């Protein structure tokens, strides 16, 4: 599919060297195997991908796998922290609002859900940026770490955390809304079921009923949803990375699309698909821990 696009890597290389004549272009094409028929190229690409060799980025002049592995941790950090934060806060909000369906938290959850659905994630990011790094400079506005910071491992970790706060909040706002809303409705459903009534009837305290009995069953739809959202969270991360100049895969993808760096773009798509699959796998495992009945069916 990528071959249908006009222009190829040879054009980009030629441009970056200030133009080249047709002869040199041919030489470049031959060197990089671009003169081979499309199917030959595709065949050799698939064999290579199977062995995790994603080819060579002519733009960055480095193997694609190296390039991606270097950026992957930053994106993973962002995506996983956003998912976790959204899950934890979402479940807490959902439970509180389900226990008191007409209370303040309940209205807050409804409002938050509407906001999360409707606000573009990059806009939320920019608003946070304006509020907390320009008007009240509490958090840094861009990047992942501050090179000037010294003082060992913990100082470095703290520095990364400080950079992480705003992107994670921006990214998780969408999913926080989804999870809290789903947790609220599934909790309400579970709280109305017979076994919860039984648990209450035998004299357990409200807290025990909610956290020990009901929550376990209310959680599984939320976790299932979280697993399905992995690929969406990565899409969101691309935008959030752009807002906060976070040095992850999204920024790399954007740069390589502009540079027409085909191997890198394909490699990123490939890797993000792997991340999604692994994410789904982990979700399934967690789901089995929470709800042992799932194991029997699978």
């Amino acid at each position, binding site marked *: 599919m990528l071959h249908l696009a006009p222009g190829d890597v040879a054009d980009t290389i030629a441009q970056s060297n200030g133009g080249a004549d047709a002869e040199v272009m041919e030489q470049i094409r031959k060197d990089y195997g671009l003169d081979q028929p499309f199917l030959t190229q595709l065949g050799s690409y698939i064999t290579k991908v199977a062995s995790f060799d994603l080819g060579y980025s002519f733009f960055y002049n480095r193997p694609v796998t190296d390039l991606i592995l270097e950026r992957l941790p930053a994106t993973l950090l962002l995506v996983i922290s956003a998912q976790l934060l959204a899950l934890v806060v979402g479940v807490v909000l959902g439970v509180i609002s389900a226990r008191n369906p007409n209370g303040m938290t309940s209205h807050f959850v409804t409002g938050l859900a509407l906001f999360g659905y*409707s606000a573009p994630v990059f806009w939320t990011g920019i608003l946070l940026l304006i509020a907390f790094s320009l008007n009240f400079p509490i958090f840094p506005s861009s990047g992942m770490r501050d090179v000037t910071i010294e003082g060992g491992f913990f100082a470095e970790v703290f520095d990364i955390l400080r950079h992480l706060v705003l992107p994670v909040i921006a990214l998780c706002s969408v999913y926080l809304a989804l999870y809290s809303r789903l947790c609220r409705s599934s909790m309400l459903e579970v709280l109305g079921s017979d076994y919860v009534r039984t648990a209450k009837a035998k004299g357990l305290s409200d807290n025990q009923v909610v956290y020990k009995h009901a929550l376990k069953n209310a959680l599984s739809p939320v976790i299932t949803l979280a697993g*399905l959202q992995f690929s969406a969270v990565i899409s969101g991360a691309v935008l959030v990375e752009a807002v906060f100049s976070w040095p992850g895969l999204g920024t790399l993808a954007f740069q390589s699309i502009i540079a027409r760096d085909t191997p890198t773009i394909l490699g990123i798509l490939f890797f993000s698909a792997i991340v999604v699959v692994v994410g789904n796998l982990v979700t399934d495992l967690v789901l089995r821990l929470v709800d042992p009945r799932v194991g029997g069916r699978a």
Partner: protein
Amino acid sequence: MSDAPLNVQEDLLKPSHPFKEAWAMFRGNHAAMFGLAVLLIVIFAGVFGPIIYQGDPFDMVWAPFSPPGEEGYLLGTDYLGRDLLLMILHGARVSIAIGLAAAFLTVVIGITIGALAGFYKGWVEEVLMRITEFFQVLPTLLFSMVIVALFGASLPIVTFAIGVVSWPPVARITRTEFLRIRELEYVTAARASGVSNWKLIGRVILPNALPPIIVQAALMVGSAILFEAGLSFLGLTDPNVVSWGQIIGSNRQYILDSSYIVTIPGLAIFITVLAISLVGDGLNDALNPKLRKR
């Protein structure tokens, strides 16, 4: 006089049209009606705004960064001194047009794949669902960025890129509905009376499978608008057309001096998508009879 009670009886017996019923439900939902009203205003602004308030949104009309309300420009000017109000009005056209077109494409692809998978089952379902999973695993935004980068940044391509990556949820819902409905007695009856497969899919099952698909389609319009905003924020859209995301993207560096240039278009996106999701929720309540009882 003695006819009166009988009339009531007849009224009850007359089947009311399902859409009438749904509309009655919908009208009773204040949030949904509010959303519909806001949506109509936005559409009105997009369609007639540029006619009433004329001008070229790319023209530099005043000094850059003049704040809203002052110096004669209601929403101020952007970093090139362009009239922000004019840009927002023109952006509304693009956002809504792309949102509707992309959602339409999404629904067409989704219904086709879901219907075939749910109706034929067997290997057809296997193959189609594997394809659906393949599309679900690829992060949609990255995928569409690649498409736009390859085929060029024009509005039809952007629409295509959004539609072609976001159909899996529609396909899944359609398939589930088809799997359920195809076993119902009236479908068996239609099949027994010799109705062809195509007619079964299009005339018998599809109309009954529509309600959840309609709700999903409404929400798809909202997410397509968000999607388009994201792409144009990254600069992956036709540079000769104003869109809301693009205003934010191109003015992003100047939030230090003037945050309103970024806040206002974002607010436009937010309000539009919010209105659509309120309408979607209302449709869900109105069209889903199971929820009515609650």
